[in-house]
């Protein structure tokens, strides 16, 4: 009895392996041949690319930039690209250990630059110049709200409406939706320094904020929150910006006393110094990479609205925009 059963199991196991193996056959080919081809390609492209450690910070726009550069590096330079899902701050710590080579979309971190750039810090990171996107951060409300109460677009009128924004989480005050606490933001300081009757509640992620904004527009709910461009979602729901006291140089220097709006930011590439000094062929690709907010929104839309994987989305955009890609590869 026991033997019979185990023999049956054995046969079953063999059958399963055989069928999967057979279904896998057909497309294959010899590994040795491919190895040789890879070696030749590396020799042709004038050097090895090796590993490229690409940080991926948690918002879709960043994913778009990172995977487009990564896919070009992989397909056209033969790099092994390792995508690392990390918060902004943690990514910077990775430059020193070699865990991270490239942060492709930096929104401005003076404190981290002080720690890791050569002039004041340990010199493990360096600025590789702008990547073409212009970042706008601010306070936004859904379009229906801006239409019905146009005066809400001025911060001084916010307190008048604070009660309308109250939820179970905001303790009687208005609820202000912060996104991911790791993003560049001063909302809690702004709220308290402008004496606004609001409480910052964090949605935790870009996607959760989008969900809240989408629902708010559909059901005409009162919602206000931290939001930014480039942002694919703005094509679906055109979020309206609330004006805060205008930005002046230095008004964000002390995070605790901020009482002004966010500036327009030229987004930059930050790279690890050791990697930048290496002879990896991807260095010049990252140095040359530059695109526009529209470009990024297209790829981000592929990922978030059309449900493509970041790799597919990047590959599709690269195919459609080979001329731009070629310029990076020169």
């Amino acid at each position, binding site marked *: 009895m026991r033997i019979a059963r*185990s023999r049956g*199991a*054995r046969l079953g*196991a063999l059958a*399963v*392996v055989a069928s*999967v*193996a057979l*279904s*896998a*056959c057909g*497309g*294959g080919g*010899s*590994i040795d041949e*491919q*190895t040789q081809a*890879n*070696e030749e390609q*590396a020799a042709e492209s004038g050097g090895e690319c090796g590993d490229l450690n690409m940080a991926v910070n*948690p918002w879709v726009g960043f994913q778009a930039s990172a995977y487009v550069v990564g896919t070009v590096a992989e397909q056209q330079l033969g790099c*092994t690209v390792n995508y*690392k*899902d*990390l*918060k902004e*701050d*943690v990514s910077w*710590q*990775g430059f020193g*250990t070699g*865990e991270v080579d490239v942060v492709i979309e930096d929104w401005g971190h003076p*404190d*981290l630059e002080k*720690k890791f750039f050569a002039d004041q*810090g*340990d010199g493990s990171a360096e600025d590789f110049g702008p990547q073409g996107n212009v970042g706008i951060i601010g306070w936004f409300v859904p379009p229906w709200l801006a239409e019905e109460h146009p005066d809400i677009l001025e911060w001084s009128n916010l307190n008048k409406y604070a009660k309308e924004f109250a*939820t*179970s*989480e905001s*303790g009687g005050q208005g609820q202000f*939706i912060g996104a*991911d*606490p*790791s993003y560049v933001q*001063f909302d809690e*300081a702004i*709220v*308290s320094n402008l004496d606004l009757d609001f409480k910052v*509640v*964090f*949605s*935790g*992620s870009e*996607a*959760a904020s*989008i*969900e*809240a904004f989408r629902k708010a527009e559909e059901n005409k709910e009162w919602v206000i929150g931290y939001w930014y461009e480039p942002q694919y979602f703005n094509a679906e729901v055109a979020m309206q910006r609330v004006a805060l006291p205008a930005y002046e140089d230095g008004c964000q220097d002390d995070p605790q006393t901020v009482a002004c709006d966010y500036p327009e930011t030229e987004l930059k590439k930050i790279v690890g110094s050791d990697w930048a000094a290496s002879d990896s062929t991807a260095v010049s690709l990252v140095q040359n990479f530059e695109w526009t907010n529209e470009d990024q929104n297209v790829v981000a839309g592929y990922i*978030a609205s059309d449900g493509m994987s970041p790799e597919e989305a990047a590959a599709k955009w690269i195919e459609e925009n080979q001329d731009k890609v070629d310029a990076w590869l020169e």
Partner: protein
Amino acid sequence: MSETSAGSGIAARGLVESERLTNPAPKKPVEPGAPPPGVEDAGISRWIPALGILLVWIAVWSFTKGNNTLALPGREHTDLHQSLTDFNNRLLAGRETNPVMQFTNGISDILRTVFDWLQRLFVRPNLPRPVPEIGWLGIVAVATWVGYAIASWRIALLVLVSFLSFGVFGYWEDSLDLLIVTGMAVGISLLVGLPLAVLAGTSVRANKAITVVLDFMQTMPTFVYLVPVVLFFGIGVGGAVVSTLIYAVPPLVRIGGFGIREVSTTTIEATDSAGQTYWQRLFKVQLPMARKTIIVGLNQTTLAALSMATIAAYINGPGLGKPVINALVANDFGKSFVPGVLIVVMAVMLDRTTTAASERSEKVARGGGGNLRVRRIALAATGVIALVAVFLSRRDLSLAEFPTYTIGSKVADAADSTMSGFIDLVGGLAESVKNGISYGFLNPMQSLLAESPWWLAGLGIVALAVVFGGVRALLTTVVCLAGIWFLDLWHDAMLTLTMVLVGTVLVMVLALVFGVWMARNRWVDIGIRPLLDAGQTIPPFVYLIPVLALFGFSRFTAIVAGVVYAAPAAIKLVADGVKAVSPTTIEAGRSTGQTTWQEITKVQLPMAKGSLVLATNQGLLYVLSMVVIGGLVGAQALGYDVALGISRSEEWGKGAAGGLTIVLLGVMLDRITRAAAEVRRDDGPTTRRAFNVRLPIGPPR
């Protein structure tokens, strides 16, 4: 369990004990004769002083509320937090020169190198080779063969199906990464844990010291490890393996030490009289006799490692946790569902394999295990097949790269549409449940705890601790509260405590309903228990997503996730406790003609009180650790502080203080409930040991 021959009666007791360790709550429970009626009276009367304290608290609160709450809103931090941040900055700035940092970074480097080497061997292209050294067919074949070699054909089949499912559902590489990280952590756990287990098993004093440390490690919510681990071991593989290790070592040390300690003294004396040395005794007597218990410890360690390795994705640990956490960021339930299920598959595979291996080794040691020659031939023959498969997978591309199937994304889509349909259906109801509980229960309670002046809340908690835990709980409570006060996050701690208490109340309601139902109906038990096992294995991030979709970012979301996380363990404990009530007692009750309701409330529940307290204890700790993760989805309070500290270096100090506060909160709740359990002596001493083991997974009994 394997039958025990006569003559090894005392050793067999060790086995029974170890079984209990894996499946908390004794099988043949309560010593007959317990509980003395006096205990029951004491239990009821304890609620009266508690109610009195609560009334006094509310009275004082009503005219002091809002004063001295020590609230520290938003980004504000104190000098203490700043000095912790400075400490972090100094360490980071000196990471090239500081010997401690050099040492920990060195360990991290080694871990990374080993992982990288294994990855090139199994997972990713070893350039210029387009594929890893060993392709999927080779890996599947060898893994299956190992399953056969250490256990049986049935296990080999389970391993085979599991491995194929990793690939067929499209997560071949992440699954192997997770296995590698888990394997590395378990390997190091053995190196570190076995000597400690021997120490704990052979020296009473060492055992006491080790137990204190292990208690502390196991009370700490997993998420909290990540703060110091990132500092010393960095992100990625290094940090992931180390944090996994911290979580996984305790069960091995505890259960292994227990097994060694339980080796019969008669046997030791008998062999000692033959003049053996310490090492002979250890290697020839104690370790072999405790082998089965040690493997049980290894089983628990492996499962713990698997669950922590998933959470380590938060610090870029490789493996199946990554797609799960990415899906959380993208709010995409479908994409988290498939990897979540695969983690359960992996857990079941590892659990059943290690269990079967231990049973087999036991059988072989007793001279069983079938015809040795036939088995050797079978092993050799299948081994050759496995080697051929390895060879083929090194040559042919299609046998090296796992073919792509669409079934994974189909399942994900189906899961997604099912979930969104469900949410559309009950969304409105969910919203009103959330608002009902938030406004009716959570907010008033939060107001009482967090809006009281700190001294009032502190006094109230101490008084309640004394009522429930007796004087034993007093000292720990005072020390923990003082620590929380010192760390400058008092208000946040009270917010978190509120969520934990509300969550635990909900957990206990579920545990009572389902636990009693399972205990009274065998079929319900058989039906529900696998679900509970799965619920304990699915990484918390997976069910955070649908809960988030239902309830939005809020404290209630964190509470519900905590309830889902804690309920399985609590339900099992209550079910086992109620089931253990002696049938004679129940029969006696029935003969007097009591109703079912009377039977449950007057006999079964009072007699299972020990299990109820234990379930409460586990409920509190599980909910705490999940509520902290809830800080990622708008639950504010301490969890948010920790998430903030991990993600922003200028807030590191506040995050670290938050982490420590969580630990203090956990220790306090744990000690109070433990003391409460010890005040009630209505269950056997073994139940208390079950405090020491988390993640009890087992077949229905």
